[in-house]
């Protein structure tokens, strides 16, 4: 299996810039370690309405 892991090795050499989607605690912990992190106030898309979510999925494509 051919694996191109260049981007992973690139990550190892970069500064982490993180988006935290979900539990705030995980983002706060990164802040304590001086990591640049953007905390989200994630809400289920389209208010959790399954029909609208599938509409949005089509939008994504």
């Amino acid at each position, binding site marked *: 299996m051919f694996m191109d892991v260049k981007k992973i090795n690139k990550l190892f050499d970069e500064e982490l810039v993180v988006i935290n989607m979900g539990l705030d605690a995980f983002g706060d912990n990164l802040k304590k370690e001086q990591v640049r992190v953007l905390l989200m*106030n994630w*809400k289920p*898309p*389209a208010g959790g309405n399954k029909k*609208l979510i599938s509409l*949005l999925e089509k*939008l994504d494509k």
Partner: protein
Amino acid sequence: MRLFSGEGKVVSVYPKAFNIRHQDGLLVSLVEDATQMSALSLHVPSFFRSRKAETEAGAPAWFEKGRLLLNGFCIDFAASDLWESGPAWERVPGFLPSRISILEEALLLRGRRGGLLGLIHSSAEQNPFVDRASQALRRILNKARKDSSIEDLSQLVGLGPGLTPSGDDFIAGVLLGEEILSVLAASPKGARSMAQQAIIPLKVNKRDMWECLSRTNDAGKTLLFQTLQGHFPCYLIEAAKGVGGAEKLEEMADAVGRAVSHGETSGTDALVGFLFYLKATANHQRRQ
């Protein structure tokens, strides 16, 4: 509302305004008060009072048949104060050739560098955008002499610095000039005044610009989309009124000064475009 039906998403939220990006790439702003209005805005103070607090970037919106659905709220464009209507131009007395030169002087005094001010200000810092625009405008003017219309203005679409590229602001100014003169010509008093000065507005060909909207970014696209249809940002309307009503240099400089404080070079670039249009028309008349 001429926006096609489609999906949208809230892209940014500010205390008095927020922007929704239509799937075609246009930015519609919902504003709490009229002074915040941009190229394409809905003035909906009541919405702000009740719903704004719950609206967040990423929230989906739907445009359909003259209505905007957002957060369970339905905004009817017909009923809301949409920045759609053209300005009332009756107060604008017209543009005597002499007024044009005072406008130019005021721009030289108050205009901001960095964009296309160099088109009229030879000692302003020249930059590659001015060079490019200057070449394009020379060609445009040569053609205008023959065709009596302004063609290929689309060469400036997407040109230059700024979140809204300078070229787009310039074009907005040109279109503003055409709009003002057309409206003036439509009123008896204005028509008389123009006839006295033998001013016939140069027509600006818009077709090529419509075709070039994708050559610029969302902000520029929105500005062009609106101004091509005769809808201008609040600050430009105010500028046109101020400039049209100014008799003396100080009054003109004040009006210009207010306009150029908009954005970084947006106001300056738009007024340079406006001036270009007026001068082109005046010179054209002189030649006929």
